[in-house]
């Protein structure tokens, strides 16, 4: 099939351009925090990258909980000036999020893109892939993203501001986030790859960060989206997914019961896409990558929509061509010599 018709290829191009823009974009938008696009971006762009075009919402949230809300609660002073910055951050995040919903994950996140590129490299190296994780393992992993959000982004920073825990836990998610290391390395900085020996707390956090980064480098070669499954941004998206304009819908038919290709294609192993008979199938773990729509062999069963406007609708012709293109990519089929065919 023509490359420009392949949704996955289009997504890769968008991911690449976004990665370059987010990592190096201060050349265009400006160097200072006030110059950044939003300061509450719904994907893991990082402020520690000196050249970044924007930074993610989790950074200001941790800082506000730790430096503003926590001390204010401790002092018993809780006026509008204390909650306004956090409200502003959340409103900015939601306004952006409404535009693309969870597609920020599947189309714009630098770390998500990096993991997918590693996966592509793993495929080309013919490494044995784990296409789908065991469903019990998936069930055990799912709550982790909520723990990451609740503990690392909200509770620990708040506790640090209240004085219950040390300064080390003022921004604990930033301290362990692999995107901080990835984007700063991509920008040519080594200053975010370190072991911090100034205190036990900082040392443990830096060990977790570097170990996790190394784990992701290897796991991504043979496993789909290892970090995305536990990312607190995924959890934050899940909280607001009902207000986003991009929708994922399913028009269930009896043929679905015998199929299941959508769930097999899903990089986040969301089995419920297959088993659900509901119209709205935008589940908490979804990144709106669109693969379920691509690999649905039936016409009109799966669709990605922008409000009411269909963006991508499942189609048997597309499925056939896309399936062949996937097999050629994976080396299971030789490319056709006929022009215009995969």
């Amino acid at each position, binding site marked *: 099939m023509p490359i420009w018709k392949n949704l996955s290829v289009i997504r890769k191009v968008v991911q690449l351009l976004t990665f370059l823009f987010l990592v190096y974009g201060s050349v265009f938008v*400006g*160097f*200072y*925090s*006030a*110059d950044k696009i939003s300061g509450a971006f719904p994907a893991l762009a990082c*402020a*520690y990258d*000196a050249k970044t075009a924007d930074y993610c919402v989790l950074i200001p949230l941790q800082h506000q909980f730790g*430096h*503003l809300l926590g*001390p204010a609660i401790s002092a018993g002073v809780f006026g509008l000036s204390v909650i306004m910055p956090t409200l*502003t951050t959340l409103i900015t995040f939601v306004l952006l999020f409404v535009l693309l919903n969870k597609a920020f994950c599947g189309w714009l996140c630098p770390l998500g893109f990096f993991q997918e590129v590693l996966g592509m490299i793993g495929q080309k190296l013919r490494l*044995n892939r*784990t296409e789908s994780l065991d469903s019990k393992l998936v069930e055990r992993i799912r709550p982790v993203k909520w723990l990451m959000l609740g503990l690392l982004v909200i509770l620990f920073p708040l506790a640090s501001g209240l004085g219950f825990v040390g*300064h080390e836990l003022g921004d604990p998610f930033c301290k362990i986030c692999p995107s901080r290391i990835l984007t700063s390395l991509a920008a040519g900085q*080594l*200053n975010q*790859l*370190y*072991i*911090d*020996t*100034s*205190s036990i707390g*900082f040392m443990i956090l*830096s*060990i977790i960060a*570097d*170990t*996790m*980064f*190394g*784990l*992701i*480098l*290897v*796991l991504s070669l*043979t*496993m789909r989206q290892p970090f995305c499954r536990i990312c607190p941004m995924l959890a934050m998206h899940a909280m607001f997914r009902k207000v986003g304009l991009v929708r994922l819908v399913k028009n269930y038919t009896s043929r679905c019961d015998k199929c299941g290709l959508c769930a097999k294609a899903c990089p986040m192993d969301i089995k419920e896409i297959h088993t659900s008979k509901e119209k709205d199938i935008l589940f908490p773990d979804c990144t709106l990558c669109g693969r379920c729509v691509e690999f649905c062999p039936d016409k009109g069963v799966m669709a990605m929509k922008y409000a009411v406007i269909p963006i991508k609708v499942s189609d048997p012709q597309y499925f056939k061509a896309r399936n062949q293109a996937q097999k050629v990519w994976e080396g299971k089929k030789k490319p056709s010599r006929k022009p215009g065919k995969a």
Partner: protein
Amino acid sequence: MGATIFVALFSFTAHAEMYWSPAPAKHGHGGHDRHAAKGFVLNDGEGARFELLNPQLSSVAVEREHGHVMVKSTGMDNYHALVATRGDGRLQESATRYIYMFGKPSGESPSRIMGFEKAALEIEPSPYAREHWRYLSATQARFLVRYRGAVLSNTSVMMRTTNGSNSALKTDADGVLTVELPEDFFNIKPGQMENRPGEFILTARHSDGGSDYITTFSSNYHVNPEHWQSTSMGAGVVVAGMLIGGVVLVSRRRKEK
């Protein structure tokens, strides 16, 4: 006449330039109140006028308290410029310091206040170490030296620090001054909060016809975290993480078989 010229030159070159420095904190390293007033001292600044510019380039009144200039919250977020000027006809002096303040978003890029002409001769940070960054020892900082808006090439600039370092620098052909902040902290303890920042002062001088100009830029700089953050250990732990990942994959493969 020779004596007059010598005295004039000596007066210009030996003149103690005025510069801003933070007022000594009353308690420890200062509290956590982001909106508390900040005190600054204008050293060797007798007879100088001073003003505080907010991000929208409006002048805000500042108070003097026990010889210190107290800068209170303007209600506006982001960098403000504390500017002192003094002139006696022939000699025009200025001193600039940038202060970050918390408040409502100003809607302005800090580039605006950095690039705004505050005095005839200026040292402009290019860029200033922004909010998640700091000036650090053993790193480079970049500045532009400008006279009436135009860059000054091959111009001498002196740098000194409160830790005792002195350097003679020069701008390049584009007026860019690259400053290597010295590694001159002593008694370094692990941890950013365990080490008090130092101050560095840049001084530029320029003569134009019958007028002489002196300007200073001052800011704090911090101990480089490299003293307690090891990149090589970090890389080693990443490799360990990769090995763990490999073990996980191999064990999963064996289970599947």
